[in-house]
């Protein structure tokens, strides 16, 4: 007996199987991502690094360098798994910390006890191998605003002049409509021809002047020092031996405090162990000196001469997820 259901059953079956398929698929994907051994470093990056650093100074939460030694293991596990509960129970340590952080409460990020243990181990291990935050703390009163200089200043000036000129021309044309009059099209075309030659020759001159001085042209010069840089979510790892993959990390000597001689031409060989990052080198006045991308599967060679002695800063210049703005490092030129 033909029913309405029969007539629609084919499309219906397709829809039902599509929906079921999607359900299975999402279930599978979510299940798959929940499996595997617990990695404290990854958990820390994903769940804690938006608010905490280990040795990088306070963020919205306290610097965790050494904090594992300040509390009992039991307290730590309870705090990390259920901070909301402990604040509600008015745990004295929790309340004191909360006051220190002006009432901004730590989030419950949904870790299990085993997760918490893995994170605690990771923080302990990092504390043992990195310098404390006091070595990298901001000066009292904060850093002064850096001066403008070099290419940045020149580009800024060119831009202001250009934008001003455009504004003036548009203003002038706008005012001209107050006393309308026919324009001589022939003359306008003659002006346009001149304009074309002016613009074209200007561009040619700038091309000629700037294309000689690109970062690629220096590929055949010799570097005094080679430093390998591996970027990963969310830090930079330095070594004097090649790093290409995560496996290399166990086999090379990692340089914790990078010091380079003043006046040396240094070649940074940058790669990434996960997503795209940017290796942005800032000078002692915290202006960008040079940069290159750090890309998985490739090695970019960035050559810079580090003339000025002092503290240099490295920031990540390619967005790489939640901890992007925390991804930074330092080096010293002596």
């Amino acid at each position, binding site marked *: 007996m033909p029913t309405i259901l029969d007539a629609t059953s084919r499309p219906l079956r397709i829809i039902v199987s599509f929906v079921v398929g999607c359900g299975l698929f999402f279930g599978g994907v979510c299940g798959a991502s929940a499996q595997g051994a617990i990695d404290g470093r990854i958990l820390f990056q994903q769940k804690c690094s938006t608010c905490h650093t280990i040795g990088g100074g306070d963020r919205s939460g306290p610097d965790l360098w050494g904090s594992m030694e300040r509390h009992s293991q039991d307290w730590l596990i309870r705090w990390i798994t259920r901070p909301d509960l402990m604040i509600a129970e008015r745990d004295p340590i929790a309340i004191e910390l909360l006051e220190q952080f002006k009432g901004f409460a730590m989030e419950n990020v949904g870790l299990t006890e085993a997760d918490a243990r893995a994170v605690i181990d990771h923080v302990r291990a990092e504390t043992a191998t990195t310098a404390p935050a006091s070595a990298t703390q901001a000066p009292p009163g904060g850093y002064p605003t850096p001066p403008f200089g070099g290419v940045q200043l020149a580009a800024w000036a060119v831009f202001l002049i250009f934008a001003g000129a455009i504004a003036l021309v548009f203003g002038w044309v706008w005012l001209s409509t107050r006393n309308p009059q026919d324009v001589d099209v022939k003359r306008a075309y003659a002006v346009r021809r001149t304009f074309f030659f002016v613009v074209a020759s200007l561009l040619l001159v700038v091309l000629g002047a700037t294309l000689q001085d690109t970062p690629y042209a220096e590929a055949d010069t010799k570097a005094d020092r080679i430093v390998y840089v591996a970027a990963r979510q969310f830090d930079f790892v330095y070594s004097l031996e090649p790093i290409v993959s995560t496996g290399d990390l166990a086999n090379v000597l990692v340089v914790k405090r990078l010091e380079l001689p003043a006046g040396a031409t240094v070649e940074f060989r940058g790669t990434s162990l996960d997503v795209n990052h940017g290796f942005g080198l800032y000078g002692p006045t915290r202006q*960008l000196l040079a940069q290159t991308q750090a890309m998985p599967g490739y090695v970019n060679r960035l050559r810079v001469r580090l003339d000025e002695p002092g503290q240099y800063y490295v920031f990540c210049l390619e967005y790489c997820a939640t901890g992007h703005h925390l991804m930074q490092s330092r080096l010293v030129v002596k």
Partner: protein
Amino acid sequence: MRKANTHTLYWIGITLVLFPILVVLGIYMRTVQFGQLPATQSWFYPMMTLHGLGMVGVCYAASMACAVDALRRYIEPSGAISWLALAGTVAGVVLLLVSVFLGKFAAGWYFLYPLPMRGNWPAWSTVMFLSAITVLGATWLIWSVDMLRAIARRYSLSEALGWHYLAGRTEPEVPPLVLITTVSLIACVACLVAGVIALALSFADVLGGVRSDALLMKNLTFFFGHVLVNLSMYLGLAVTYEVLPEYAGRPWKANKIVALSWNTVLVVFLAAYFHHLYMDFVQPVVVQYIGQVASYISSIPAAVVTLFGALMLVYRSKMRWNLASILLFVGLAGWAIGGGGAGIDSTILVNMKFHNTLWVPAHFHTYMLMGLMLLVTGYFYHCCQAATELPEKPSFHNLVILLLMVGGYGMLFMFYLSGAASIPRRFAVYPAELAHGAGYAGLGALFAALFLVGLIVFFVEIGKRWIRAFRVAV
């Protein structure tokens, strides 16, 4: 009175709703960067993703809607596909909202591979996000192809591209609108194809675990993003060529120079996308140079033909200034200023110091916000005003323009200043070493709020006309 097209009215409605919401997200981001609202910090990157992709999508769809509306004088797009474009865009936006709000997806607007698969958001939100892009991409591809089909029914391809002008003939007369739209649509098909390949490879990774080459994906992604943003701009210019003459009372026709200029644009601006990969030193060096040369060359037709032509059209004309014509006029200025900022950054030497600093959002916000968005809203106002002919209040309208200009350029000035001061883009919070970035962010948020006030007042003005026109049309 000129009855408004129903589809266009729907697009205007969608834009009037989405645009202010996305602007609020922009103000929110500047506020977080100023150090306020710390408790919402974890929403910064999801909102950045939504704002960026949402804005680029609104700009593209709105400028396409303008071009389609203006083209209806000459050609006839398919009714069914016009509905599909609306429905597909809305469906894509819904998927996008779910992925960002429920899944906190935050890979940035161009979701550079392999970040979508390696973030701290759940895998389902990545699939949802990629599905959203697939729906939008497929819809827009069909929309573009249908428009090309409609153009081809009236003009041959060589006519639509103005090649007969190049050969010295002046017949048949092809309006610049048709010429520029054809150029844009061809570019659009190319860019969406690149987008589809990048999407397919992303799906292969998230579903099948098949890894792709990061450099290949970067090239595909930036080709897609660069072309999509630029062609939206060109569509905005195309309707300006069509409408500004009505207000100036003078013709603005295609000729040999105009045809030559837009054909040059088609070839050159595609090659200019290499300027996004200057800092990938493993790219072949020759394409880096091509990137800078192509970027520089593409400024010549823009400045010498389009800008000069527009200024010549208005110079000493009996211009009828109202909200529509003023917005089109200042929109052209914004496009030019943003182009200057882009040109500076497309110099490899400078890019070394500006790449991924706030100079990048600075220049593209100049030509998208103070350029394209003003062209598009100017055209929308033009449609609604023509359909209703309500009385206009010039002094009030000048106030609206003043608010938009002071707010918009104030906000942009803070972006440029931050860029020149080496403040990185896409930092939710600035580290102590770059704390001066927070001050610029605070001022930027204030100016942006001023812009928003102007925008809301303007939208009330256009909204009144929109409701009337809508009642008549539906």
